[in-house]
């Protein structure tokens, strides 16, 4: 008997960043309870939706970044259902004409690159927020109407690991585009998971079970693993999977039944007649297209394949667009990419983490950064000196090049210092006698060296070499 293969599809809802809501002018963002409001948000009679250009622009950016086909006309539909967090009694969404269809996202799995195909991505609106108390619920409508983008993959994901890789890749696309903050902890990104099992030889997909509204990627992983396990056990004991909607219960570590297919709601989708069809001019689409940055996946592969940076470091550099942008700007001034990457990953990030800083706190401009790396690559300064320069620049909030000048003009070369020390010895035989008689002469000799070199020697290196030379006596 062959094993069961999981087939997974994901629907990710993500709140888009904008100043105002998707269909009303009220604020999209922080605010006291029930203050970010317009009459539309609470479904007052006679109100009408007016589409936010920025929400359209952001969703179009995402659609293009997902390699989707985008429509020439913008259309919206209604999804009708009764729920207290939906004041209008319908959600404005895109059912028939999504902002993007037939796209894909590349992920790097252990067995190589894989294309996760996207069924569609569509622009809609968020619901109100409910707090559930012991005997009642309370509603805050600030979130009602916030632009929400739903991206639906085909059922083409075959493991929990792949699902997480996809989710991280998708989230990074949103972050790279600055389309969303995508903070799962704030509920800005929510995932519905579909899981079905089939045997290798099966042509048809198995019966799918949907798990709704999962709030963290970690929980998505758990939910998939446990659902695969649950379905496998049912199938292996000769049972059949019911098409149903379940809810993953973190405490129980398994999904629990919500409703069956028979009870599925008919949302009676139909065209939103308060929003006419809106032609998206070529100029609008091409402006958005031209504003797209190069995304994580492409950057990562360039770093590995073209620059020869190690996989792990390439991941690290591209995980955060700001960091990746910083890196790219630095190397644009001519420093060696591998040396630059090593300095960023091997030193800078560690320093930032150790001191609870962020990249924004780093005051070293890219051109100077590049110059230091070049000096280091040319062996004009040591790796340690380069790090010292950066540390000093950050800690003393000083200009990197000034510090470099300071440090760079010092005599740090061990052999040079050794030569100077021996000169001092030969000019001051009494000191050597004192040393041999057990006197501590280190300070005195240091003073002589400083005097002789006008203080240009590196004190740290000099101390070490001096110790070595004294021991030889």
């Amino acid at each position, binding site marked *: 008997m062959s094993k069961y293969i999981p087939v997974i599809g994901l629907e990710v809802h993500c709140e888009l960043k904008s*100043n105002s809501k998707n269909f009303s002018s009220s604020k999209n963002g922080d605010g006291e*309870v029930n*203050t970010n*409001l317009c009459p539309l948000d609470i479904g007052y009679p006679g109100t009408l939706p007016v589409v936010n250009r920025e929400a359209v622009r952001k969703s179009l950016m995402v659609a293009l970044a997902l390699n989707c086909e985008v429509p020439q006309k913008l259309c919206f539909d209604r999804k009708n259902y009764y729920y207290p967090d939906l004041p209008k009694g319908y959600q404005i969404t895109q059912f028939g004409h999504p902002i993007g269809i037939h796209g894909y996202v590349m992920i790097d799995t252990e067995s190589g690159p894989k294309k996760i195909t996207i069924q569609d991505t569509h622009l809609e609106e968020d619901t109100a927020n409910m707090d559930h108390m012991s005997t*009642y619920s*309370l509603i805050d409508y600030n979130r009602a109407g916030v632009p929400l983008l739903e991206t639906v993959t085909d059922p083409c994901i075959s493991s929990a690991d792949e699902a997480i890789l996809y989710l991280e890749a998708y989230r990074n696309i949103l972050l790279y585009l600055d389309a969303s903050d995508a903070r799962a902890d704030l509920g800005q990104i929510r995932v519905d998971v579909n899981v079905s099992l089939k045997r290798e030889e099966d042509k048809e997909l198995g019966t799918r079970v949907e798990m709704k509204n999962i709030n963290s990627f970690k929980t998505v992983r758990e939910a998939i693993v446990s659902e695969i396990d649950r379905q496998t056990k049912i199938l292996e004991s000769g049972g059949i999977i019911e098409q149903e909607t379940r809810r993953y219960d973190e405490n129980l570590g398994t999904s629990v039944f919500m409703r069956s297919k028979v009870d599925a709601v008919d949302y009676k989708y139909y065209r939103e007649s308060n929003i006419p069809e809106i032609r998206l*001019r070529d100029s*609008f689409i091409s402006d958005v297209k031209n504003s797209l940055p190069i995304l994580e996946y492409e950057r990562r592969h360039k770093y590995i394949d073209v620059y020869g940076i190690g996989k792990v470091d390439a991941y690290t550099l591209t995980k955060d667009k700001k960091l990746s942008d910083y890196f790219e700007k630095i190397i644009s001034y001519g420093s060696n990419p591998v040396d630059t990457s090593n300095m960023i990953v091997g030193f800078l990030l560690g320093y930032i983490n150790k001191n609870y800083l962020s990249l924004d706190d780093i005051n070293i401009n890219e051109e100077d950064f590049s110059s230091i790396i070049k000096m280091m690559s040319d062996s004009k300064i040591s790796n340690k000196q380069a790090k010292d320069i950066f540390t000093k620049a950050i800690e003393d909030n000083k200009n990197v090049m000034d510090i470099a000048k300071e440090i760079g003009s010092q005599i740090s070369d061990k052999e040079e210092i050794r030569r100077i020390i021996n000169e001092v010895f030969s000019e001051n035989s009494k000191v050597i006698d004192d040393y041999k008689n057990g006197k501590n002469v280190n300070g005195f000799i240091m003073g002589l060296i400083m005097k002789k070199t006008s203080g240009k020697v590196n004190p740290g290196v000099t101390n070490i070499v001096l110790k070595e030379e004294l021991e030889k006596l």
Partner: protein
Amino acid sequence: MIDRNKLDDLAKKLMFKMNDNEYETLLKEFDITLKQMDFISNINDIVNVEPIFFPFDLELDDSCLRNDNYRNEIDFNDMLVNVKKYEGSKVKVPKVVE
């Protein structure tokens, strides 16, 4: 087939109840509506006509989209005129169970 149960189900999903007399009238109206729509279905080649959802093409393009400036027109104090039950600044309803 439309029968009393079907209508009952439809009404329930629309969040209201109807009584026997109301259902009786409604069943008759359904008879008429469906008969009339059968008549429309028989219009030659109707399935190949593109449905319209607006009286005419309003010929809008992306320049008609709203600029993304925020302005809160009302707050909870305005809602209070019409909200029956609340706690703090939130609207209160019996516990909603998923």
